[in-house]
């Protein structure tokens, strides 16, 4: 009886010390999570390296790190003191890296809730990256030469077609209508159309911030393209626009119909939206990041080491996203 009493006092004493210490948060602020790694066929991926950074501003690096390898079921579980948010990365040889984050909902005496949620993380295989013409006009700036007139842009020459440049193929045809007083008082419309009957573009909405570094489908679809898109900014009291970095695109240019009635074309993708900016230009600057595969397959997997534009200046180089 006496021993129990002493033990009880001791336990209370220890708990009190812990509560008073700077480390007491660690007991109640522990978060736990399971990352389940899968491939594009939803098969478990074992042997993947998983790194989790549990947000904690009291840590020198502002995170408490946990690292490990996914098991035969693709799972890795980690826990650490946290302030309720975490970020993670998953890598494995032969796959594109994936990153993500998670916010816990609330904290109680058992730690951060939900306790040990399972997050499914997709790792995409590196299969067949090919050379492409890849350019980001935000870094290599272009400006539409004229307003209210169709102007073709050659994606492989990275230039306007004559008489505004040395381009040969009007892959994209831009047409700008512009009324601009200031950024908050304007009506501007940019139309994008194509040269050939089966050319076109397809919208794919996706916030590219997290997930696999390899974005959008591996292969361009055969159908579903539209022959033009209109981008607009209407501002006059209220601002209205469909410019959005979540608007990604797959496009088809230089298309021909073969004898077997199949379409032969170059396919490509645009990541992070198409923007135009009339603010500081007599016409408008146009910014979009494109990848054009010239091998006439629908493959959209880019090999960043083989950009067909050659050795671009460092800031103009384009990665896989």
């Amino acid at each position: 009886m006496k021993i129990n009493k002493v033990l009880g006092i001791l336990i209370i004493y220890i708990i009190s010390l812990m509560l008073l210490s700077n480390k007491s948060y660690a007991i109640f602020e522990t978060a736990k999570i399971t990352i389940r790694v899968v491939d594009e066929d939803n098969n478990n991926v074992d042997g993947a390296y998983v790194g989790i950074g549990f947000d904690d501003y009291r840590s020198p690096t502002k995170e408490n790190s946990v690292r490990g390898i996914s098991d035969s079921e693709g799972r890795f579980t980690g826990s650490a003191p946290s302030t309720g948010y975490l970020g993670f990365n998953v890598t494995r040889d032969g796959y594109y890296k994936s990153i993500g984050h998670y916010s816990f909902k609330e904290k109680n005496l058992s730690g951060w809730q939900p306790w040990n949620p399972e997050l499914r993380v997709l790792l995409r295989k590196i299969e067949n990256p090919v050379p492409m013409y890849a350019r980001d006009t935000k870094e290599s700036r272009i400006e539409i030469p004229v307003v209210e007139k169709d102007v073709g842009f050659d994606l492989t020459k990275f230039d306007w077609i004559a008489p505004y440049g040395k381009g040969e193929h009007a892959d994209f045809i831009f047409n700008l209508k512009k009324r601009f007083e200031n950024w908050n008082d304007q009506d501007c419309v940019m139309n994008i159309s194509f040269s050939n009957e089966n050319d076109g573009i397809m919208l794919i909405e996706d916030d590219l911030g997290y997930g696999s570094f390899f974005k959008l489908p591996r292969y361009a679809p055969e159908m579903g393209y539209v022959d033009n898109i209109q981008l607009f900014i209407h501002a006059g009291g209220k601002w209205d626009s469909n410019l959005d970095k979540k608007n990604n695109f797959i496009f088809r240019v230089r298309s021909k119909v073969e004898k077997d009635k199949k379409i032969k074309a170059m396919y490509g993708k645009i990541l992070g939206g198409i923007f135009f900016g009339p603010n500081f230009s007599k016409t408008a600057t146009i910014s979009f990041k494109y990848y054009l595969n010239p091998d006439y397959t629908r493959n959209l997997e880019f090999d960043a080491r083989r950009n067909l534009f050659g050795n671009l200046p460092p800031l103009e180089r384009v990665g896989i996203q």
Partner: protein
Amino acid sequence: MPHNAPAQETGSLIGEHNTQGGEKNRLKADDFANKEHFTGFEAECADKYLVMLHGFKVNGQAARGWHSEMFKRMFWSGSRAKFVGVSWFGFENIPDYHTNVVNAFSTAEVLGPNLKSAVGSSPVVIMAHSLGNMVVSNYLADYYPQEPAASRPNIGNYFLFNAAVALEAYLGDYQGYAEGKQNEIFGSDNPMVHTDWYGYQKRLGASEWHRLFNGATDSRFGLTWMDRFEGINGINLFSFYSQGEDVLDTHEGNIGTLEVASDTLLNAGRHSWAYQEKWKGRAPVNGLGGTTTMGWGFNLNDGYSFLGHHVQPSVANTYDSQIFKSAPFFLKDPSKGHLFTQNIGVVTDEAERNEILSNQIPALTLPTGGREGGDMFRKLTNDRVFDMNGQKYKNGWPSVRNNEDWRHSDLKNIAYPYVHRVFEKIKQEGGL
């Protein structure tokens, strides 16, 4: 003034409560303890200046750390511009954020002449981090246009980094959030709204109070963050934000306890910026992560309470807006009786306006440096707005950081090889 030091520091421009003081100016090599370090530098430098201002919770010594790091990184990136680091009082009474916002406004008032004395007539590129953007934006909007061209610094470009300034200060009511929608109710559609105000019409809130007044005759019309910095003109702005922000991260829902907010601000943790906005008018003690009047506080006088609690939205939403001029539904500041009148009210001066904005008017939009910072493309065009969290500006990431988000101060905290592209971009766009 001879400029024989490529790196300079102007001391804290405004001391605590507007007194003089702070770090001493170091404008010449002789002012530095390691003056021999500068030998020969002058000949290498171009006749251009890069000026840098730090943010909140950076004391005089930490400011020197920021300045040194930014100068080195720019030099490594090929810039040969001379460098001026400006320290200001952003470290007063931590975790009191709002006092330091007031300090930022006060610093803006004296920035021009001090800067001019440091840079002369040379071309200037100015960059600011976090709350330092309140200083620079206020200076460029309110004071720079008033200064004669010959006696002001020759500023061409302004780079905003992780700006701790509400988007509405640059873009106005750009989301059409409030204009013509005063009878709509506050709700979860806007993460900046305090949850206790869900269900109340927007016209009842402190952020919309200014709309009751005639802009031509009543200076209370200026008590809003919307378009606060619309006066910036003729300078090229470039905004670098991060979708992976922690300090400026979007906070949704209940604000939790003041202890959490205070602790978060003390440690510059996730949601710091949102917390200080949502705790305006809600703190029991001024400065402990929040303020005590106006903001999201409720007025329990003037017939707005029932059994000691503010009346419910179903009742409050029936009140006529005109009575709010003298008896607002939000918590009045008893020390500012001159504001709460049915007659023409007078905001005493610009300093009082800035103090009220800092302490008592909650922003209804997210911060410019945070997750929605890409919205700045509307004013700047997409060519001049950069998400540092994108892979474009990361060259890998340190293995000690499993969370690969670009956090609030990673411009300085992450080793140069991982983040060098941002500095190369500053050099390129700034012509440095």
